[in-house]
């Protein structure tokens, strides 16, 4: 075994000791003593404001959902992968979609060139979804779609798919990400201007509440903003601010907060600072419950609860010495469980530079199973609750998160902050700052800027390379569906969709479902909506 040598770069020689400052900039006391933590009421898990968790019985009543992200190439290939994962004991499916589907282009569109099936499956119309879920009982599985700009369309397709198989949509369980606000800030698959997008989101949520009451119609996500440069405080603050913007729009669309708030859920990263992450989620639960109760007058505890899923890994993983990432994901999984996450996705150790192999994907799932069944951290609810440090840090994070939320509010709320590009600018500036800290070694990452092996050059990055034949097959199937469908029915459905888009009193969803039944394509539906609503003009502020 070769000894680890530190790099000769003097910049990377920076801090060797333990920094007193957390990644969010909280200066942690050397030790927290009882007198530094205000005596709080003896709160129990399941009690308002849910600092200690939303379920009184923690994970004993129900374990978290172990969900792995997959889906690439054609619907047939993804279907085979799903069958494999279900046999392996996975309890939920996760569908990744290619960029043309996410941005609203059909596979024949010039903008789709060279992107078909690349980062996920191509789902241009109902016939592709029928292949994707062939042999899988939609009433028995929980499916999570990572989709935003076209989320309402893909959700409509899922409902249509179930209806065509004679399955009552009320039995469907799963999630669509459907969080358009963070797309403008961090992920980039926006299509329409912010305000009509908010209507589309609200309509899908209200429709889902009625039609698929067990389905989560939105997952308000901080993860991508974290990846784009936010620290833990900002991740939680901006996500909660976006959440409040959805609540306001849902109320404007006639929704009842006591009802729709029960189906709002959130999605975050868990990074490496275990205690800061746990404190972030404890504070998040407390803030959300308090705002729902006092600002919106919500009284049903279920509508005050902050439910969330997490990803362990993401940008905390690095390409140099990739096996170290297994350790990182394990620590983050422990943090996620101690935070009381409702679902956990664990990244494969090689995801920082390639498409996970079957082996690396299996280690990621096994990590969760080991934490669940061997480590014991799930045994007692909120096992860190009452720790002087954790309680102190929870209060500190709460205060800082609220301060960041107040800034957004002072600007005029999340919608305005995003329309103007203000939030995007803040996140980009923070990303620049973080990159400088990594360059200088002030933010240590083992194997990357400290203890880097000299003989290892930059990780062998691998990118999605899809068989060109597969993308040709997608186009052929598309053409075949176009030839087979009832063109008059498609055009009638699209006309009705266009009329509904122009009428703010209408809910768009039933018209989208009708379009999907007629095998109208994502590109066609988006074109109709664009004709009415226009396209987002990206504000450039740096």
């Amino acid at each position, binding site marked *: 075994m070769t000894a680890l040598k530190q790099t000769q770069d003097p*910049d990377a020689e920076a801090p060797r000791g333990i920094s007193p*400052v957390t990644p*969010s*900039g*909280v*200066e942690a006391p050397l030790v927290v003593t009882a007198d530094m933590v205000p005596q709080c009421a003896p709160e129990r898990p399941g009690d308002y404001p849910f600092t200690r968790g939303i379920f009184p019985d923690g994970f004993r009543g129900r374990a978290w959902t172990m969900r792995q992200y997959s889906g690439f190439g054609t619907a047939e290939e993804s279907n085979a992968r799903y069958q494999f994962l279900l046999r392996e004991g996975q309890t939920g499916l996760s569908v990744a979609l290619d*960029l*043309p589907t*996410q*941005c609203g*282009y059909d596979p024949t569109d010039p*903008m*789709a*060139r*060279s*992107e078909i099936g*690349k*980062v996920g499956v191509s789902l241009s119309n109902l016939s592709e979804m029928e292949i994707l879920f062939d042999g899988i009982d939609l009433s028995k599985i929980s499916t999570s779609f990572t989709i935003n700009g076209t989320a309402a369309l893909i959700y409509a397709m899922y409902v249509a798919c179930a209806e065509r198989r004679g399955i009552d949509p009320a039995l469907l369980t799963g999630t669509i990400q459907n969080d358009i606000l963070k*797309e403008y800030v*961090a*992920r*980039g*698959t926006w299509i329409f201007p912010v305000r009509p997008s908010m209507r589309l989101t609200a309509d899908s949520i209200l429709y889902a509440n009625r039609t698929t009451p067990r389905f989560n119609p939105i997952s308000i996500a901080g993860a991508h903003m974290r*990846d*784009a*440069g936010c*620290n833990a*405080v900002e991740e939680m603050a901006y996500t909660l601010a976006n959440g409040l913007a959805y609540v306001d729009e849902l109320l404007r669309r006639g929704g009842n907060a006591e009802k729709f708030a029960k189906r709002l859920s959130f999605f975050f990263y868990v990074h490496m600072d275990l205690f800061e992450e746990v404190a972030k989620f404890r504070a998040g639960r407390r803030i959300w419950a308090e705002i729902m109760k006092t600002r919106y007058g919500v009284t049903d505890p279920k509508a005050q609860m902050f439910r969330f899923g997490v990803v362990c890994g993401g940008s905390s993983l*690095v*390409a*140099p010495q990739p096996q170290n990432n297994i350790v990182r994901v394990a620590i983050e999984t422990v943090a996620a469980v101690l935070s009381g996450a409702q679902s956990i996705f664990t990244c494969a150790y090689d995801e920082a530079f390639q498409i996970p192999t079957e082996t690396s994907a299996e280690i990621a799932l096994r990590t969760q199973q080991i934490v669940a069944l061997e480590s014991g951290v799930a045994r007692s609810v909120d096992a860190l609750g009452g720790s002087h440090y954790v309680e102190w840090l929870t209060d500190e994070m709460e205060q*800082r998160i609220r301060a960041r939320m107040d800034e957004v509010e002072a600007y005029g709320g999340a919608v305005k902050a995003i329309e103007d590009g203000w939030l995007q600018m*803040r*996140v*980009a*500036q*923070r*990303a*620049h*700052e973080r*990159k*400088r*800290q990594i*360059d200088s070694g002030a933010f240590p990452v083992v194997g*990357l800027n400290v203890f880097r092996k000299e003989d290892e*050059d*930059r*990780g*062998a*990055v*691998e*990118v*999605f*390379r899809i068989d060109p034949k597969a993308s040709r097959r997608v186009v052929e199937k598309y053409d075949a569906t176009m030839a087979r469908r009832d063109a008059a029915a498609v055009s009638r459905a699209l006309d009705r969709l266009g009329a509904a888009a122009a009428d703010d009193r209408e809910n768009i969803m039933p018209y989208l479902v009708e379009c999907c039944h007629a095998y109208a394509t994502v590109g066609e539906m988006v074109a109709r909506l664009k004709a009415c609503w226009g396209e987002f003009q*990206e504000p*450039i502020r*740096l």
Partner: protein
Amino acid sequence: MSDTLETPAVPTTLLKGKRILVAKPGLDGHDVGAKVIALALRDAGAEVIYTGLRKSPGFIARVAVDEDVDAVGLSILSGSHKELVADSIAALAQEGASAIPVFVGGTIPAEDVAMLLDLGVKAVFTADMKLDDVIAEVAAGLRGQPT
């Protein structure tokens, strides 16, 4: 310690007076790298124009000419760099702007670097490179300077 935003000041004058276009071709929505580079180039004295997402190679070439830039940086993380870089370089040629140096950053596998350099790219950058090193390479590769 406060957690207020402070853009770390590493001001240099390496790129003073230079105009640089940072562009996002294709559908890929990951713009954090492009924005971080844009801010770093600005810190180094350059005037930076950022296109925003989902721009066609033809659009990027026209902006490069209209804005009379000294360099174009293409940011690509979707794996479509071969097609998008070739198209962008062809579009610049069509605008009679082949002399503008092109840099590429993003998720670029090591084995693809030579191919991009053969297409005429001055240098290829990945996320693990230090910003100061990127700026130094851009400065060296600018028009009129030997690389």
